[in-house]
């Protein structure tokens, strides 16, 4: 099977083992939107495809699950080609062995919980009784024993999602594909189910692909993250990589890091579109640069600090967002930045929108990386 289209030739990334997922494809939707997807997932690892709405996540799900044909490239799973861009190479969804957990659960209302979970086994030839017996252990492991005879409409969102997950893994597919598994849940259930997923994802032996727009899902559940924006994968790496070296403003925003673009001239940073210069300790990376500032590195003072770091300016509070242990303060002109401080400090400084405040950053806290 030779790759075709824009992915001709090896891309240099590591080869997935034969049982993993290998994705290299381009697909254009009737709307004109084009998705280029290119990633591998090894067996036993979870990859998160993280991106905003409209980035192409649903298109990726459709192509991998077999709900849409790719235009060029290929999708291989467990050493088997699922699609190679030709109509003859397209494997229909029922033959792909891809277990999908859908965002809206999509449980069959006319079947009870057990029959929903055993639907795949019965579809593949088991008798109803054999199917029910075969999923018994799964029903127990997913804590669904008491709900076994319920209809989907009698389940809460979290329960329904557990059933959807059990249904997807019951046939022991070659890939587990989770499409926004937590998006339809309320905040408290989401945190609970995220822990549930974290413990149960590891039980699934094959490659796992988590589609999400929520960085918390990606950072907490995935071994590796692919960031998808405008139909292209912009960055790929471990959660740690993504957090510490975000490649685009979107990623930085997701990871809670301030990312600016500008120029560096002997340690003096001129921020694009702003009348502010910052002093960085890094004088070696000259020219066009990405400037990253961790929100925790920004200190806030009610009055102009004396003997202060060189990066000091007067700004005002735009918004105050409590994030549990910390409070994220969004600062306004002259430089829109997010600063993380403790709730205690927030109260002590009396921070509400429009409060004037002095911001300082140590030169050593400003990370400068070359930008082309």
């Amino acid at each position, binding site marked *: 099977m030779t790759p075709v289209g824009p992915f001709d030739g090896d891309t240099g990334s590591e080869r997935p083992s034969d049982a993993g997922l290998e994705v290299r494809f381009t697909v254009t939707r009737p709307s004109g939107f084009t998705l280029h997807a290119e990633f591998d997932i090894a067996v036993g690892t979870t990859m998160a495809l993280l991106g905003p709405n409209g980035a192409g996540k649903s298109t990726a799900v459709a192509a991998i699950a077999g709900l849409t044909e790719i235009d060029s490239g290929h999708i291989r799973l467990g050493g088997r080609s699922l699609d190679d861009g030709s109509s003859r190479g397209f494997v229909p969804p029922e033959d792909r062995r891809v277990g999908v957990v859908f965002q809206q659960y999509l449980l069959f209302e006319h079947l009870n919980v057990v029959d929903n979970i055993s639907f795949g086994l019965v579809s593949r030839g088991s008798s109803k009784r054999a199917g029910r017996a075969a999923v018994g252990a799964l029903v127990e492991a997913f804590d669904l024993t008491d709900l076994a005879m319920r209809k989907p409409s009698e389940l809460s969102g979290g329960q329904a999602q557990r059933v959807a997950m059990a*249904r997807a893994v019951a046939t022991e597919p070659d890939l587990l594909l989770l499409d926004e598994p937590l998006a339809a849940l309320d905040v408290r259930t989401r945190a609970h189910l995220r822990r549930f997923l974290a413990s149960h994802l590891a039980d699934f032996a094959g490659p796992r692909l988590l589609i999400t727009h929520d960085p918390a899902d990606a950072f907490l559940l995935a071994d590796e993250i692919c960031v998808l924006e405008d139909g292209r994968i912009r960055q790929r790496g471990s959660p740690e990589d993504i957090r510490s070296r975000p490649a685009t403003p979107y990623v930085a925003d997701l990871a809670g890091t301030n990312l600016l673009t500008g120029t560096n001239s002997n340690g003096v940073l001129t921020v694009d579109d702003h009348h502010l210069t910052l002093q960085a300790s890094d004088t070696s990376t000259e020219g066009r640069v990405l400037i990253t500032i961790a929100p925790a590195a920004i200190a806030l003072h009610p009055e102009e600090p004396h003997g202060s770091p060189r990066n000091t300016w007067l700004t005002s509070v735009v918004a105050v967002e409590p994030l549990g242990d910390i409070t994220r303060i969004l600062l306004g002109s002259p430089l829109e930045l997010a600063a993380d401080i403790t709730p205690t400090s927030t109260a002590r400084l009396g921070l509400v929108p429009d409060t004037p405040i002095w911001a300082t950053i140590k030169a050593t806290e400003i990370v400068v990386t070359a930008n082309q």
Partner: protein
Amino acid sequence: MRSSDRRRHSLWAPWPLVVLAIVGSLLFVVPLIGLLGRTPWSELGNLLGTRVVLDALRLSLLSSVAAALISAILGVPLAWVLSRVDFPGHSILRAMVTLPMVLPPVVGGAALLFALGRRGVIGGPIFDATGFVLPFSFWGVVVANTFVAMPFLVITVEGALSNVDRRFEDAAASLGASPLRVFRRVTLPMIRPSLNAGIVLAWARALGEFGATVTFAGNLSGRTQTMPLAVFVALESDRDTAIAISLVLIVVSLVVLVAFRARWWSPGDRDPAGEIGGST
């Protein structure tokens, strides 16, 4: 959902709507009262116990149920093809399928005769080969009934099919279900309320069928004379019998419509589109 819908039912409606609604319902209620007023109640048992009436009742029930079942067996796949498959002549086929709903049934019966009659395009060769004649037989009645009744089932089911949330079908396919299995195990259960409604509509239309039947199958007492035909014949000679038979038709139809309306048609009970989460 249902309780909140109930609560929204108002006792107070704008009076122009109420007046027009009353006039509208009178159109249906007054003829019924007229019929009941003329009904010879004491004679009813004798009138309905005659051979001719019992034969007509038996023929009507058998042929209308047969027509409804055949409509379901052929009409559901036809509706599926119309709603899911794109092919040249799609809109022409849909128009042809629904044509019997607007065509005078007599015209339909005549068309059937030209096609399936002893000298018809298809009926001719069949008669020459086997000696089988469809018109003027019980199965002729069934064919005429199906011809006029099936469109009601097809458009009801097709509407439901195009409202089905296809993602449930995708989910079933991803679990390994073949397209036929997806249809039987997921799509059909999702459109069940509409399918039931379509079957009842088709049955009701077949029960009242007159024009196509009399043209294609004739009016042979004991063989092709259904209740509507018996009423028509009796109106000429024996008005009391005609009224009695009409009364039976009305009672049977009302019982079925009320029973199935309560069970399957309750608005908001089950939404075949979108979520199928209505609890029963």
